[in-house]
């Protein structure tokens, strides 16, 4: 099983770099994962990550892209409530990349 080192602690991740034990998540782990992808997390990224975590707490699944864009649009203004904005933040796809940093499982299926 693969691990990543965060502040001297070995954290278990799966073959695609997603957390194995979701309860282990800390913001530092999110930062460390992003760094491995050469991605610097800004406040804009954290808005998305925090929303994902809140949604996951309630529904045990990541939100649909449309639900996410609407929520971000409400919070940050309409010009940011679209998937183009989210792809600028998370070029590998908002659902998959942002979920990884947020410590959520990878969405499966035809997505």
């Amino acid at each position, binding site marked *: 099983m693969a691990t990543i080192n965060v502040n001297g602690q070995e954290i278990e991740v799966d*073959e695609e770099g997603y957390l194995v034990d979701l309860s282990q998540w800390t913001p530092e782990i999110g930062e460390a994962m992003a760094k491995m992808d050469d991605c610097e997390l800004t406040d804009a990224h954290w808005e998305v990550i925090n929303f994902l975590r809140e949604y996951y707490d309630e529904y045990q699944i990541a939100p649909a892209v449309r639900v996410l864009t609407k929520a971000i649009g409400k919070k940050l203004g309409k010009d940011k409530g679209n998937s183009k904005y989210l792809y600028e933040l998370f070029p590998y796809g908002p659902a998959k990349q942002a979920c990884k940093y947020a410590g959520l499982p990878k969405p499966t299926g035809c997505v």
Partner: protein
Amino acid sequence: MADFETPKLKDYIEIPKVQEGVMAHSRPFESKEQFQVALGYPGELVDNWEEKAIEKMGDLLGKYRSFRVFLDSCVKCGACTDKCHYYLGTSDAKNMPVARQDLLRKVYRRYFTFAGKYFPKLVGAVDLTKEVLDEWYSYFHQCSQCRRCSVFCPYGIDTAEISMAAREIMDSVGLGQKYCNEIIMKAQTIGNNLGLPEPALADTLADLEEEVEDDTGVPVKYPLDQKGAEILMVTPSADFFAEPHIDGLIGYGKVFHEAGVSWTLSSKASEAANFGMFIGSYENMRKLALRIREAALELGVKRIVFGECGHAWRVAYSFLNTLAGPFDFLDPRYPVPQHICEFTWELIKEGKLRLNKEENDHMRLTFHDSCNVARASRMGDKPGGQFEIPRNIIKATCNHYFDMPIDTIHDATYCCGGGGGLLTDDLIELRVKGALPRMTALKQVVDEHGVTNMAAICAICKSQFTKVLPYYDFGMDMIVSVHQLVSNAIVLKGSIQEKELDGVEDEEETAAEATE
């Protein structure tokens, strides 16, 4: 991300020079014990896997006559060699359909034919070794089961069926693929491939209702688990989650609303896709199909309609009745099941939908035939209906439509590159390279006709194109849902769009304008 070079787009599809083993490294992640066991397979590779694999092959040969005929009848004519998109995109010799079949055929000959048992070298028969098993795992996960090669085979040998059998044999000895098997487990326990539980589904649909009412002024409903509804809508769960899929779902709801029929989605059957087919497992395919039957009975519906999902339509159209029938409790006046495109096209023909094509004037469209719809099913009551009906809908909703070259559409369509259980990030190199023929054909209509968008009726195709289009310097949002076009064009009765078109302005607006 794996390092690889995206092929260069040329003006036409070129047959590459054969290379040995250039894709031998391509292997999807192996399944985990928990997924294997849930599907009724051993958790890991069993000790006597060779013996068990041959036993399973014998079992399949006994069950499926076609499987034996396909293994026996190849005459090595070569007609299939340049027909596979994965061969065209990768140039790997083993991605020629005949070579892919031979991976299994050479083992079949060794254990099940007289010549192979006694004179193996003369007939190219080999023992099943770990090297052979590894090759199977690699190359039977480089076949999207699209069946294009079988169209050109003079014997009609179906490589898809051989690759399904190979995957079933591998699963039965404990060597499964993570992507497919995790998804099948989720669909069998939660109800859909995404693992979307009922509360999340309800919340997403409520959100959509709000959005559509904001856009149109009409309270279009997206009902869930509504007993007594006339129609059960079964659609891929990607329609609830991803883009542009969700715009298609919005379109279905608007069509049902305008038709004035009651309909419902089901949280139990919240998935049209049936990955049991991809791994060649009758038992797992049946379990998934039975959820649809149970939901239809519990909700008391009279009709079942399927949304935009390619292989789901193959399972529904070709196998649903034998897998989960009889459906004698449904209204016999309608096809069992019906495709949403058939439903919408009927309404358009009867003049029951008002469509404003100008709403799609910002797009110039082409249509990608999805392989399972094109080559493994039909729509409507005439041969070729599966090609005509989606195009008819597009032409009824858009002013600018152009087909891609004829040898790349209809039953000769090229796979998107991500079908058959290969739509996973660990196979991204294969997916990008396998999309080359379709991307080349698309470029032709972009250059000749200024095409801006490509429509499709399959969740896998839509997700695959969203991902691979940018590798070929096209925009990811170039791919659209067919019912997204319907959704854009439809003028709902009492909607804001209707008022705008008919010039009946709101009194308040007129007053406001007058004071400006």
